[in-house]
């Protein structure tokens, strides 16, 4: 039985196509994926991403603990900084990819994938021995919105009244006492909520390749914020369908497709988020070995000559017809009008411009290896 987010009733009322994802029943699209995709690229869209999981790590050893389970390096980070990275198994396989928010000197907020919440929390708890920390699993306390697109900054400031323009890319702040400025009641555009007992967290992050913000708050706050955004008409409700096409186009990985227990960050081309100069973290030796000796398979981009669409799991073949890999995600790329995919292929076939074929149903279609970024990101840094 799938869980519902705090916005479930609103999605149904908007007529969204609902489908299971990561243990939740989530909106896939409200109108259609193409329109929602373009709204985020050109204006602004809002996503319910309340299915994401949250874990708070506090205590004297919080930083040392995060350093132990996380591949990126948070040592000496300023409060408000956010890091992307992975948790790894000792063999280098990926437990999950996640964001780590530094909230205070002894306070970290970890955001994990919905489908992995139970597994991740169990994994974290297994590795607390020897650390003086408190691990608080808070997924049920938070709803989350992602407001994404070139107009996101104005929308978040003007519709939600959250001052966010000073946030740089991958910075966050926690807001505990936003004053209720109801004096300006004539302006329905600007409503600022009071939530003295229920802080919100705002970060300049996202999963679309556009500028944007992610907002974490109580269910009540997230419901009010969603209503305000939709009523404003300045922000299109967007489903997980276009979240996937948007993240795919800019080459962002999805756990389960481009990362898994069998796909290490080195294979996925994400070594830059794994700091091998750190004293230690789980999986470090395995990654160092992979970096030194190479990996059997690598994640690549493939561009097809034809419009046929490569989908997850379709076989990738050499020009001689020998199986050399599998598609991880593929689409007819909406922003560049080409059929493209990411695929995990034998390393010998991973060089740029290597000709390859993808089997799509009964036919094979020729293509070539390209960079696994099909559209340029437009972050505001």
């Amino acid at each position, binding site marked *: 039985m799938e869980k519902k987010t705090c916005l479930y009733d609103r999605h149904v009322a908007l007529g969204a196509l609902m489908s299971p994802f990561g243990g939740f029943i989530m909106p*896939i*699209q409200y109108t*259609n*994926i*193409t329109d929602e995709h373009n709204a985020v690229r050109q204006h602004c869209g809002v996503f319910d991403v309340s299915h994401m999981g949250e874990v708070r790590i506090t205590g004297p050893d919080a930083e040392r603990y995060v350093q132990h389970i996380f591949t990126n390096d948070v040592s000496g980070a300023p409060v408000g900084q956010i890091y992307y990275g992975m948790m790894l198994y000792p063999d280098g396989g990926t437990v999950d990819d996640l964001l780590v928010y530094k909230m205070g000197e002894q306070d970290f907020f970890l955001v994990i994938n919905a489908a992995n919440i139970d597994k991740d929390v169990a994994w974290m708890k297994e590795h607390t021995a020897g650390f003086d920390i408190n691990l608080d699993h808070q997924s049920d306390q938070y709803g989350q919105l992602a407001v994404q697109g070139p107009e996101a900054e104005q929308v978040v400031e003007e519709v939600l009244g959250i001052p966010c323009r000073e946030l740089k890319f991958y910075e966050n702040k926690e807001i505990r006492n936003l004053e209720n400025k109801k004096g300006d009641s004539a302006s329905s555009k600007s409503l600022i909520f009071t939530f003295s007992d229920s802080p919100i967290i705002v970060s300049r992050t996202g999963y679309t390749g556009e500028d944007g913000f992610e907002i974490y708050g109580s269910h009540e706050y997230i419901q009010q914020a969603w209503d305000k955004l939709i009523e404003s008409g300045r922000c299109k409700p967007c489903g997980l*369908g276009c979240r996937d*096409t948007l993240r795919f186009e800019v080459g962002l990985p999805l756990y389960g497709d481009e990362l898994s227990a069998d796909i290490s960050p080195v294979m996925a081309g994400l070594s830059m988020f794994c700091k091998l100069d750190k004293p230690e973290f789980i999986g470090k030796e395995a990654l160092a070995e992979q970096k030194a000796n190479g990996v059997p398979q690598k994640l690549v981009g493939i561009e097809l000559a034809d*419009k*046929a*669409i490569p*989908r997850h799991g379709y076989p990738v073949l050499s020009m001689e017809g020998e199986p050399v890999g599998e598609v991880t995600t593929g*689409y*007819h790329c*909406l922003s560049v009008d080409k*059929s493209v995919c990411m695929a995990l292929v034998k390393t010998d076939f991973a060089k740029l411009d290597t000709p390859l074929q993808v089997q*799509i*149903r009964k*036919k094979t279609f020729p293509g070539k290896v390209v960079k696994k970024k099909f559209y340029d990101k437009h972050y505001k840094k």
Partner: protein
Amino acid sequence: MAKFEEGLRYSESHEYIRVEGEYGYIGISDYAQHALGNVVYVDMPDVDDEVTAGEEFGAVESVKAASDLISPVSGTVVEVNEALEDKPELLNEDAFANWIIKVQLSDPSELDKLMDVEAYKAHCAE
């Protein structure tokens, strides 16, 4: 919301066939194109390929997923709708005007197993 056209035969998997003499024009129903959403690619067989009633002969792809096309009849492909190669969205604009393949029927009695428009409406309402 979906439109239905009289005089066609329909399959449970939402293909229609418009019969003209020994030939049939096969496409997807308006109900099917609604359910699929934006069609971005149509995978069609080649002329002279054989199709078999109840078996896959191609696919219609939306952004999110590929849906197999199931032939309502057996026969030989004599023409494919090449306009769909460049403009697959024609299926969304008018599914009944934009057939996908033209087939020479090998066993017209197969048509009796398909639904008329009233039966198909009831099928869609289930």
